[in-house]
């Protein structure tokens, strides 16, 4: 425990030293936080006291905006429209929605199942928590920030538990995290280039297409592998690709003891880079990190998913500091989700000790494929925004949006059910075996 804590502390201090790196994309620009003090309907201006500064700024209401849309005396997030001119308001959102009991319960439940999932497959949760928070009324940036801030303590608890079970390869985790952070930088650069050329809609489309393609290709591969293993009741074998890559004796060779792999650093580095790039693009790096560690590096699903938790902790802590410095974390949401997910993540970690390797792959593949549907449902909307296809009917876009949201919930439910059933089955089997053994000894 002491060793682990010292290790974590060194890491956090180390992460604080670097300021220029963001995980999961940078906090938004053209956004300010503050409190509107008054609004003038005649001149169509509003005065706002910016957070952390003494001066008061006057902003102009955009065309079509009514005075009622300005929320007075409450902390708001204002996004500006730089194309319409300086100081023109594009959108005003209340930063902290009122916490009702229903919202509290919703956050607790989503947190619990999200935690269960990440304790089990090493990632997940983020893809469903952020949209869930947004649908409860949180602005997008606040949802991303609050999720990030809940992710690192959760991953810390989860990786500690799985480290105790001997599943975490610390060295592999550190190499992955270090390269992933560089990958995040590259990902952000790519995003910015796309944003400059094709604007917001183009960037949304790019993100969704990457998301859907990666999830379908990787998800389908993992699913076929898991099904093959479950049918034949075979022991999981190291993939052919990994075996071939392990034979390449290219300096520097790195040995990962827990994962039981000796491989050239030239192989692990790209896996980490892609994980980071994906994290910066779609905010869920684990969907490429875990399969990458399994099929390219050659670790078992058990070790890969446990190691991913360590990567998630390091990157999450990094990101939280960045988002916190931008002042966007709603600590109430963070802590409510944490209340559920700290139980879930430990339960998921316990669960991995009772199941076979392929169950982890099966859960991961199902989640990835259902989430792909969710994101895919958004693509027509983005295509229409770019005028690549005719505009969608209002009704159709409403249906597509609800498909997108509910498929996330289905993904969560399916994962929760598979994990619980596999765990109960494993526990009952274990108990029966133990009793049989005792009975044998007694005779």
């Amino acid at each position, binding site marked *: 425990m002491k060793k682990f804590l010292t290790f974590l502390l060194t890491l956090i201090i180390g992460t604080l030293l670097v300021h220029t790196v963001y995980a999961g994309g940078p906090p938004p620009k053209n956004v300010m*936080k503050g409190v509107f003090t008054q609004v003038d309907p005649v001149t169509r201006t509003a005065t706002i006291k910016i*957070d*952390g500064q003494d001066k008061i700024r006057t902003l102009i209401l955009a065309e079509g905006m009514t005075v009622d849309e300005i929320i007075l005396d409450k*902390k708001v997030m204002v996004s500006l429209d730089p194309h319409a001119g300086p100081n023109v308001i594009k959108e005003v959102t209340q*930063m*902290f929605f009122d*916490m009702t009991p229903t919202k509290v319960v919703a956050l607790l439940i989503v947190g619990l199942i999200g935690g269960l999932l990440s304790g089990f497959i090493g990632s997940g949760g983020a893809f469903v928590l952020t949209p869930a928070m947004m649908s409860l009324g949180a602005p997008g940036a606040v949802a991303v920030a609050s999720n990030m*801030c*809940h992710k*690192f*303590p*959760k991953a*810390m*608890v989860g990786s500690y*538990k799985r480290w105790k*079970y001997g599943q975490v390869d610390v060295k592999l985790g550190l190499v992955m995290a270090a390269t992933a952070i560089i990958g995040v930088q590259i990902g952000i650069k790519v995003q910015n280039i796309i944003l400059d050329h094709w604007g917001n809609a183009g960037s949304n489309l790019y993100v969704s297409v990457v998301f859907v393609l990666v999830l379908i290709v990787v998800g389908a591969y993992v699913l076929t592998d898991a099904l093959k293993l479950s049918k034949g009741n075979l022991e999981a074998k190291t993939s052919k690709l990994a075996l071939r890559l392990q034979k390449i004796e290219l300096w520097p060779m790195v040995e990962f003891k827990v994962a039981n792999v000796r491989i050239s650093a030239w192989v692990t580095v790209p896996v980490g880079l892609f994980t980071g790039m994906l994290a910066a693009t779609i905010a869920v790096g684990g969907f490429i990190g875990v399969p990458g560690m399994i099929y390219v590096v050659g670790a078992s699903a058990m070790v890969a998913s446990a190691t991913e938790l360590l990567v998630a902790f390091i990157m999450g*802590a990094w990101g*939280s*500091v960045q*988002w*916190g*410095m*931008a*002042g*966007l*974390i*709603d*600590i*109430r949401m*963070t*802590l409510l989700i*944490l*209340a559920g997910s*700290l*139980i879930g993540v*430990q*339960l998921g*970690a*316990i669960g991995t*000790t*009772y199941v076979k390797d392929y169950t982890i792959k099966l859960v991961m593949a199902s989640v990835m494929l259902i989430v792909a549907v969710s994101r895919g449902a958004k693509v027509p909307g983005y295509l229409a925004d770019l005028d690549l296809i005719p505009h969608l009917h209002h009704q159709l876009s409403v249906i597509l949006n609800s498909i997108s949201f509910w498929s996330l919930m289905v993904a969560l439910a399916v994962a929760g059910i598979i994990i619980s059933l596999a765990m109960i089955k*494993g*526990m009952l089997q*274990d108990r029966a075996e*133990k*009793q049989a053994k*005792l009975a044998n*000894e*007694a005779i």
Partner: protein
Amino acid sequence: MRQNDPYQPELSVQRTTRTSKSSSVSTTPSTSKATQTAFRKKRPVGKMVLFGAMSLGAYALLFSNEALVTNTFTLGGWHAALPVGTAFLFSFMHGAFASNFLDVLGLEAKKA
């Protein structure tokens, strides 16, 4: 002892020594068989209650000062230490509670 508890037999040998008046000593080994319940780990109910109360108290404290907390925590800059530190603190308290809670429920990792 609960009915479904696994049990293990215990064999103990007790030596009895008798000394008679004619100062001859006879020693007879005698055995007795007893059954006892197998070793059972104590469930950490006390710890769970302690950490649970701490965690609950911390949540109550934070949510009763909701407005103050949300405003100060989002001022940006060095204030980032506040939400990050709070998340850490809560994860230790609530994490310890959750761990003990699962132990009390009897959900433990499989022992190899």
